[in-house]
């Protein structure tokens, strides 16, 4: 033997997973939707994502005064998630400000990774929405142009515009469900293709990083409320419910934002409650509020309630005897 023996408390073997590997898995899971976004919106989409990721990592490195830019990868995840919530061709400074707000106000002031209360990417997005609503959630959105990146690399995607499906009933009726599924629809980068989101989330599910309860509770609630209160366009209440699930940011939110480990409950029951709460608030804002979309606000509000949910849903221990009166 060379070197001294190591003494530690059991167990003596560890999983090969680390925080960094988890973050890389999340990045990989976002790849399909990122790819679709680039195919639809061209180089501007790619640029937005690159700026967001780099400025997020930079913000973290500056705050922590570290040289290792990638680090545990959490800043890159925040940056990419933020980019997913942005329109295809925002001004570059908007992306940078968003990333810095996300990392600093959303995460680092609370003590960095693991300590933040709110989902950093959504904090960044909320600040942008409130500050520059015109850029972020205006009525006009670039029309996606499939495979534009191959045909015309420097095509300015914001030249032709339309409204998002959530803008009103008319726009909703102009959008088919298959369009929503495959992504040929106006909206933020990550809100385009439902299918790509599901594929990515499937990867996280296989790796055990997300659990069915949050997405299930969220999507289920949106579906039920959409069907019951959505007004029943498409001639069918169920299809209306499906529309509400597929359109806008619900899937991105339910699969990637609400499932953010740090800011969602740790208990199983808590996760379900969290998902349902997100769904209810999202639909309230969509149907009755002045914002067309409520995913960001819904998840932030539920983030705030997470400590309380956790405290009230501590699971019953194995073999706990029900207290008889």
């Amino acid at each position: 033997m060379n070197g001294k023996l190591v003494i530690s408390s059991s167990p003596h073997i560890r999983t090969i997973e680390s925080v960094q590997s988890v973050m890389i898995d999340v990045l990989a899971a976002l790849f399909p939707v990122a790819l679709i976004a680039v195919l639809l919106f061209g180089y501007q989409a790619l640029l937005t994502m690159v700026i967001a990721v780099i400025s997020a990592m930079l913000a973290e490195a500056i705050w922590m005064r570290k040289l290792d830019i990638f680090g545990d990868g959490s800043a890159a995840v925040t940056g990419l998630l933020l980019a997913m919530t942005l329109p295809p061709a925002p001004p570059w400074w908007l992306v940078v400000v968003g990333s810095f707000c996300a990392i600093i106000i959303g995460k680092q002031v609370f003590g960095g990774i693991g300590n933040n209360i709110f989902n950093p990417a959504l904090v960044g997005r909320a600040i942008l929405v409130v500050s520059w609503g015109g850029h972020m959630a205006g009525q006009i959105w670039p029309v996606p142009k499939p495979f534009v990146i191959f045909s015309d690399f420097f095509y300015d995607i914001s030249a032709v515009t339309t409204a998002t499906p959530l803008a009103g009933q008319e726009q909703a009726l102009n959008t088919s469900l298959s369009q929503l599924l495959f992504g040929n629809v106006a909206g933020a980068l990550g809100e385009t293709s439902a299918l790509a989101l599901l594929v990515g989330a499937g990867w996280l599910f296989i790796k055990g990083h997300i659990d069915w309860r949050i997405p299930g509770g969220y999507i289920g609630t949106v579906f039920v409320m959409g069907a019951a209160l959505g007004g029943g366009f498409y001639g069918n209440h169920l299809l209306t419910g499906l529309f509400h699930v597929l359109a806008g940011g619900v899937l991105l939110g339910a699969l990637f934002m609400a499932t953010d480990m740090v800011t969602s409950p740790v208990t199983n029951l808590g996760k379900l409650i969290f998902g349902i709460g997100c769904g209810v608030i999202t639909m309230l804002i969509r149907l009755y509020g002045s914002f067309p979309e409520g995913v960001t606000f819904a998840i932030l509000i539920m983030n705030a309630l997470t400590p309380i949910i956790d405290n009230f849903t501590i699971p019953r221990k194995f073999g706990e005897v029900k207290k008889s009166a």
Partner: protein
Amino acid sequence: MGGATFKGGVHPDYRKELTASLAITAMPAPAKVVIPLQQHIGAPCEALVQVGDTVKLGQKIGESKGFVSAPVHASVSGTVVAIGPYNHPLGRKVEAITIESDGQDTWHEDIKPHGSLESLSPEEIKAIIREAGLVGMGGATFPAHVKLAPPPEKPIDTVIINGAECEPYLTADHRLMLEKPNELVFGLKIMLKALGASVGIIGIENNKPDALRVMRQAVEGEANISVVALPTKYPQGAEKMLIYATTRRKVPSGGLPMDVGVVNHNVGTAVAMCEALHKGKPLVERVVTVTGEGVARPANLMVRIGTLVSEVLKACGGLKETTRKLIIGGPMMGLAQTSADIPVIKGTSGILALTEENVDLSEPSTCIKCAKCVGACPVNLVPTFIAQAAEHELIQRAEKLHAADCIECGCCSFICPSRIPLTQWIRLAKADILERRRQQQK
């Protein structure tokens, strides 16, 4: 039945292939054995011999008057050369008797068969088992006869033999099941008779198909004994998990298996029980899996109790240069040792040497609340919250989170991507809680 399992658990890399196919070989008796006077949970023994005395193999050399206790026996014949504190696998020094072997292995004259099972009463069986110094050989080392004598208000109907061996690396029980199936079944019958129980179950994880096959053959024709295949998952062999998986009975929190009419014993204990009855042989040797990437020639050895671990390792070709951790027991619940200068005791199921690539010394980072520990905990705790409470010395909070129910299986620490020593924190909280409860009782 079968297929039922508990919630949670983890799937570590089992690495059993290192020794699973190696038959048990007897290690020659060493020139010197060190027999600690406490190798079990309960009252320590007092030495019955003095320095200079001559002892024979199987002679009782330590005994205690306490009920929860088990005597110790000489595992070689020879001369007592020292009685005094010696290193112990549990970390502190314990009174031990050192015997120098005369190389003869002369059995003590009292060692003789006890007759057939039919001719013995349950009381006689319990006395024989106590005299033989049997303890739980899975590592818990709880005196075996105590488990066979439950209070009369708690009738036992089922005895479960734990053949799960869910700890990675270890194969001692696996080999015993393959090589001594009939002795095992006979041991189970002894237990059934001693307890007046009617059903015997042998639970084996389904990653040991050969053991399942052999054991199923061995119980053919035994109407009240069955072999149950269990899903491969750590900690399938934990007492409460095993009982749930085989009988669907949940041991109440803070309770014992006897509260649901069950007693369980380890494979090794059952085989030793058989030998105690058939040959009158006390517990002087046991099967030890010597394994790990740091061991030159891994093996399943029959080792005399009291053999120094350094001797055992020598018999296996010594440790490799890259060894960084020496563990008594399995990698999930075993104890890391500061040196090999410790004796093999009754509960030593494995000697494990891990090398650099298996010893993760990376610093823990902040909890990212991924809740993997919550999913892995077999007893439904929230390990990260308990650890956090322990770290901030919030003992009451830890208690409210049921820290005292932790079975210390290590799943949470294993699964944690942030490398937080959760099990260690919870153990700390548990100790504090128990300490507080003791003070409150005063």
